[in-house]
Structure formats: structure tokens, C-alpha cells
């Protein structure tokens, strides 16, 4: 019966703390990250520097940061359409994969075409593939009231297995010495790079445009308003007569399309063909980006840079300090953990029982 600490709602939560919480979370992550480095017998200053500063100390590094941040931001802003509506789509990884398959399929089919339409067709196909894959959990949720968390997650693995099957089976490169990969896309099926010698590509521009469009939809349109209302209060949405199923389908479709475009951005950008490991869990990591960015396009933009850095830092740490690269995931986990913690403290206060 007697609890030592009780958690009491604050009643009103501060708007500035809502925005500051992610910054506290990042600070706490660095603090606890240093502790982990100390326990692993690394000099924390050197390790943190290798992790967070040296990867972006030159143009190439910054370009790489943007290469990683591009899919993260795009998927995260897509996810925000779902999360704002209280739909927990955690299957963006699958939607990304399906986008890569649809768009990549177009790329493989037209590998020797010189038409400038190949890339736009690939992007469109990628968006459609992602959207269709996203609409499966939407259909299951609206028809059978299944939990979208489970279905969207499970469908991610289905998509990954389909990709696996395609690259070892029917789509395997005939000249590829039996490697599990497809034939490379032609020149017309590649995202143009923005600066010679760097890998940062046109996908960044698409992402920035879609971030701006999303902001507009959220704040200026009836559709964005409907998403907001049904997220805050499903009863009020019913009272207003909004079409709940339409909102569920469109949130999933938008998220799927964005993830699909992110997928095609990866395969037609840095990769250039389809193979098994097209995404280092971008679809899952984007969930952290989305919450760290407070479901807001601008916040998501900054959050994507922070999280992209954990990918780069992990690579550098492995290369120069022989720290396992999975430390990057530890950092992502810490950020999410501290964000949830600081969010709790923004909305609740702790009271000690005496």
C-alpha cells in the first residue's frame, strides 16, 4: 500500500519544457554515454570526440551526415502523420523495403533505358509500393480491429523476406557471380548527386520539400486539423463527423509513401542496386527521430541530424578505437530512454512519501 515515490500529474505542462526536454535528453545521453565509455576503459573525452565531433569535421563527413539524415527525416515526418493521429505504425522499415522493391523493380527493368523518366517513375513506384504496404495494417485495423503495432511490425519482416527472395531468386544479377544482389540500375535510374565527389544526393531536396509540405498540411489544412483532433480526442472527432477510417488509411498511406521514397532514395542514391541490407534499420530509428523532433517537421529535421550522427560516430568509433559499432544503437536507445523519462517529468512530478 505505502509507496516510497508517487507520480502526480502536474496539471498544466509547460510549453517551453516540452521543447527543452529533447535537449535535456541528449545531454543526459552524452553524460551516460561517457559513463559507459569509462566502464569500457576508454577515455570518455577521446571517445566522445571520435563519436560526435570527428565524423563531421570535414565536408565529406557533413555530406555523409546528410546522406544518413535524409531517409531518417523523411520517414520520421511520414510517421508523424500516424503518431499525431495516435496510430502506432512501427512498420516503416517494411514500407521502406517495399518502396525500394517497387522502385528498384522499375530501375532494373529499364536498366538500359536512356529516358530521363526512369528516375521519376522509380520514385513514383517507390511511393506507391510503400503506401500499399502501409495500407495493409490500415485495412486490418479498420476491418478487423487488429492492433497496428503488431501487424505493421510483422509486415516489416515479410517485406524483408520478399526482398531476400527477389535478390537471390528471380531478380538476381545474371552477371553477378551468384552474389545475392540485382543488376545495377542504369545512369538514368540514379539519384543525381548534389556536389561532385560527395554522396549527398537529390533525395535531400525531395525530403526538404516534403518536410515543408507536411508542415503546411499540419497547420493550414482541414485534413491536418482532422488528424490532430482525432489524435487528441477520438470522441470529439466522432462528434465532428470526421471519417475515422479515411484518416487511418491516409495516415498509413502517407507514411508508407514517404518511407517508400526514402527506400528508393537509398537504393537509387548511394547503393545503386538492390541487395539484402539496404537499410541499417532506418525505419525503426526514425521512430526515435520522430519523437525526439516532437512530431514537428522542424524538430524532426534537427533530430534526424543528431541521430544520423550516432550512425557515423559508431562507424568511426569502430574504425579508430575498436569500439563495437553497435554502441551507436546503445546511444539511440539512451536518447529514447531519456526522452521518455524527461517527458514523464514534464507532465508529472514525483512526490516522496515521508
Amino acid at each position, binding site marked *: 500500500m505505502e509507496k516510497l515515490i508517487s507520480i502526480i500529474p502536474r496539471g498544466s505542462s509547460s510549453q517551453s519544457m516540452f521543447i527543452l526536454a529533447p535537449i535535456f535528453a541528449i545531454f543526459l545521453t552524452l553524460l551516460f554515454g561517457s559513463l559507459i565509455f569509462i566502464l569500457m576503459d576508454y577515455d570518455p573525452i577521446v571517445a566522445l570526440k571520435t563519436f560526435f565531433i570527428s565524423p563531421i569535421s570535414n565536408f565529406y563527413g557533413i555530406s555523409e551526415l546528410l546522406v544518413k539524415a535524409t531517409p531518417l527525416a523523411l520517414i520520421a515526418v511520414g510517421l508523424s502523420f500516424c503518431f499525431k493521429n495516435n496510430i502506432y505504425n512501427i512498420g516503416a522499415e517494411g514500407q521502406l523495403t517495399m518502396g525500394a522493391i517497387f522502385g528498384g523493380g522499375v530501375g532494373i527493368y529499364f536498366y538500359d533505358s536512356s529516358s530521363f523518366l526512369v528516375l521519376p517513375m522509380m520514385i513514383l513506384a517507390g511511393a506507391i509500393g510503400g503506401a500499399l504496404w502501409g495500407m495493409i495494417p490500415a485495412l486490418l485495423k479498420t476491418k478487423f480491429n487488429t492492433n497496428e503495432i503488431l501487424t505493421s511490425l510483422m509486415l516489416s519482416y515479410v517485406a524483408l523476406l520478399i526482398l531476400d527472395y527477389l535478390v537471390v531468386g528471380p531478380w538476381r544479377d545474371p552477371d553477378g557471380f551468384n552474389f545475392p544482389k540485382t543488376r545495377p540500375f542504369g545512369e538514368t535510374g540514379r539519384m543525381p548527386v548534389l556536389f561532385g565527389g560527395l554522396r549527398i544526393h537529390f533525395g535531400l531536396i525531395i525530403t526538404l520539400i516534403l518536410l515543408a509540405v507536411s508542415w503546411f498540411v499540419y497547420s493550414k*489544412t*482541414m485534413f491536418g*486539423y482532422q488528424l*490532430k483532433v482525432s489524435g487528441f*480526442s477520438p470522441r*470529439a472527432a466522432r*462528434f*465532428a463527423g*470526421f471519417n475515422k477510417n479515411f484518416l487511418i488509411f491516409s495516415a498509413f498511406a502517407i507514411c508508407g509513401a514517404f518511407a517508400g521514397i526514402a527506400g528508393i532514395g537509398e537504393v537509387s542514391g548511394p547503393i545503386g542496386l538492390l541487395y539484402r541490407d539496404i537499410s541499417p534499420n532506418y525505419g525503426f530509428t526514425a521512430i526515435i527521430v520522430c519523437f525526439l523532433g516532437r512530431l514537428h517537421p522542424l524538430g524532426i529535421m534537427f533530430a534526424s541530424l543528431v541521430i544520423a550522427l550516432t550512425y557515423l560516430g559508431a562507424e568511426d568509433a569502430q574504425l579508430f578505437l575498436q569500439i563495437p559499432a553497435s554502441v551507436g544503437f546503445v546511444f539511440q536507445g539512451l536518447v529514447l530512454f531519456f526522452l521518455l523519462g524527461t517527458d514523464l517529468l514534464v507532465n508529472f512530478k514525483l512526490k516522496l512519501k515521508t
Partner: protein
Amino acid sequence: MNPYLIQIDSICKKYPGVLANNNVSFNIRKGRIHALLGENGAGKSTLVKILYGLVSSDSGNIFLNNEKINFNSPSEAKIKGIGMVFQHFSLFESLTVSENLILGLEEKISFKKLKEKAIEISKKYDLSLDLNSPINTLSAGEKQSVEIVRALLQEPKILIMDEPTSVLTPIEAEVLFKVLKKLTEEGKTILYITHKLEEVIKNCNEVTIMRSGNVITTCNAEAETKETLAIKMLGYKVRSLITDYSSIKNNILFEVKNLSINFKDPYKKNLTNISFTLREGEIFGIAGVAGNGQTELMELLTGENTGNIEGEIIFENKNITKLRTKTRRELSIGFVTEDRLGHSAVPELSLSENILLSQFPGNKFSKMGILNFKEIKSYTENVISKFNVKTPNEKVSAKNLSGGNLQKFVIGREVISKPKVLIISQPTWGVDAGAESFIRESLIKLSKEGTSLLIISQDLDELVEITHSLSVISNGYLSKPIETKNLNIEKLGIMMGGEID
């Protein structure tokens, strides 16, 4: 020798934005029924929660038998002999009566002993109690008996009753007062919280009147009349609004024909053959005790539930039974639901954003799906000024408005667009007296401009005051309409108790 059992001395309690209790002081004598009278939001509940250890006061003292008390939890209050029966039953619906009784006890006791004690108490006070029936099969009155027996099992010296008759039929209320009388004859003390004047005059010995956090006075209830109490409670003389039948035209605007629905969910009330008509300019009321099918009927009328319905809802000769809420509004039917926060308004959103929930033909809030903020702002400001909504500006979140102000806002939102039909559930539930009369007047004014109104309310006074005719809903059945001017309160009470026609 101190004649008082409880002395409440200068209790203050502040919530963000509200001074719920401002220097509240009064004394309660032993063996009396002491009423605490006040409108919703007067600070009665806060005071009682402090007394019962649910919240702590900011300052002030409470003495029980000259001993200063400061409870940190209800269990401490129970040990000191204070029991409480809440307005909203705190019973586990799927458990039996005896299971509920044993769950509420602080001490460990065997089922056998508990049953013996419970039967003894129920016999002593004539409380009907079937220990083995599950709570969800009981009527409101029977549920309350369970609550009372549960409180009495602790052998309290003082029993706090929070608006106990709000869910009871008049007959059940009579029974309750007999029980209370018997308890005081044994030397127990009752603190009786209510906003019903009649109950105070008929059944209580002393009365303390509260208004907006302050104690207005404590006086001898037997020496008061309804009018004198009302003046003290409301702070001004109650005006009775005269019902004018001249605005009613003969054409029927809205009609419900043999509406029936059966739910699989046992907690929902089935509706059977509900029929009524609304003529142009008419205000029609549906009276009844909560939980007799009002919520379910409202969902069918708004279009939030359109499945498995038998019968028809007809508006201007068009069958709208299957139309969605939004489409119904586009036909110029307005709605205000019972719950302000989370149903007819989104607490987290600003007032101007809340305007968008309800859109009528003629509103130009968006074009091709893109919002027109200028138009939304001017409409919101119009609602705020015409309906006297107290708020710094239209950007304030709905949750930051007081109940009365938010209610004026959600009603104003509909009224300003002058819908042809307006359907309202509980128009003045939990609002202060000023907002209450403002809302009622604006509804009457709307009817004179040709709108037909349906008002579902548990507040009989309200219905008598503003409707032209009314029916009673009981157990999912609706009575034939009665003209309000020919109303007989005794008959109405019997009807509300379940004897329709």
C-alpha cells in the same frame, strides 16, 4: 462543553486559477442532518474531500471532538469514524454485493461474518440488499443501498453523503431520507451535500450555504423556505422564465419514428420504439434519471452511431437515420453533447480550433481544404462576444476555460449559425447560475427565431423553465409528450421511476 462534533475553521484551498475554498468556517452538531448547499462549483466537493482526507488544505484547521485532525488518506478518516457515500458509485459492476462490501473494508473479516453484519445493518435500516447479486443487475437506488451499507459497516460516527439523490427516483429518495433520519436518531451525524433546495427544507436540520468558495451563512434549515434559500445560494432572485407558445408553427421539422436499438454491450441501454416530433420553433424536452437511455439516444440523433437501428429519423421529409454527423450538420442540424471536454470540444486545442468541429452550411472556414484563419477568427470572436465567454482571447485552450464559459462557447458555436434544429444534452450541467440563465435565455431566443430544439436534461427545473412540452425517458422507453404548462410534478416523478403512461 463544546456542543459541536466537527468544527471547520478557516479552511483555504487554491487550485490553479480557482480559489475553491476561501476561509471556510462552520460547525456541525452531533446527531443532526447538516446540509451543505451550493451550486456546482461552489466548493462543496473540495471541502468534503479535505474532510475525508482525499486532498489536503492549504491552511486552516478541522477539529473532531475538539481534537485537531489532518488526514492524509481516506483510510485514516475511516478509522476516526468518518464514512462517505460518493455521488458516483464506486462499485465493481461485475462483482457481487458481498464482494464489493468486503473490498471496501479496512479490517480483515471472513465472508460469513461480513454477511451477518451486512444483513443486520440492512434489516435495521430497511435497506434492501441481496448479497449475492452482481452490481450490474441492481438499480441506482439498490446500488446506493450497497454504498450506504458499506459505509455503515465501518461504524462511522459521521456519514458524508455527496449529492446522493442525483441518480435516484423521487420514491427512492424518500426511502433514503427515512434511513438518514433513523441514523441520526441513533446519534450519528450526517453531512449532506446537495444543490436541491427542497431536500434541505424537508429533511435537514442545519444548512451551510456556499457560493464560489465562500460560506455565505449557516442557518436553521427548518426556518427557511425554498425562495430564501435560493436567494442565498444564487446571490440574486431567481427569475422564472415564462414559456411562450406563440412561436410554435404547425409544420413538423424533425421527427423520430419507432426508433429501436439493441446493444450487445450489457452496459448500454437498449432503446424501444422511441417516437417524438419537433415542430418549427418548439422546445421539446426529454426528462429522466441518468442512465435510462439518454446517451444512447443522443448517439443516434447525432449520427455517431448509425448501425443496427430500427425505425427512422426524419428531417424535412428526408430520412437521415443513416447519415453521418457531418452530413447532418450540412443539413443544418446542430448538436451539443453532454461532455464538454473531449466530446463537444477538444481540451488541448484553442477556441478557434474548436470552432472547426462543428460546421454548418454558410460557414466559410475552408476553401479546397485549406483553412481560412481570418474567417475562423472572426467567427470565434463573434461567439466569444455574443455569448459572453470570459477568456483573454481566442487562442486560449478549451481546457483553460471554466465549465460555464466553455459551455457558453460550445452552445454559442451552434446557436450563432442558427441551425434549423438544435439537439442539446444537459445544456447547463455543472455551470454556474449566471451561465445557466444566460444559456437558457439564448435557447428560448433561438426558438423564437424558428429553430426547433430538443433538450435532454436530468434537471427538471430547467425543463419546466424552458420547454413547451416534454416526455420522460425511462429504461429505454419514451413517454407521450405532456405540455409543460399542464405538468404535474408528482406524476412526473412516478413516470421517472419507470411507470410510463
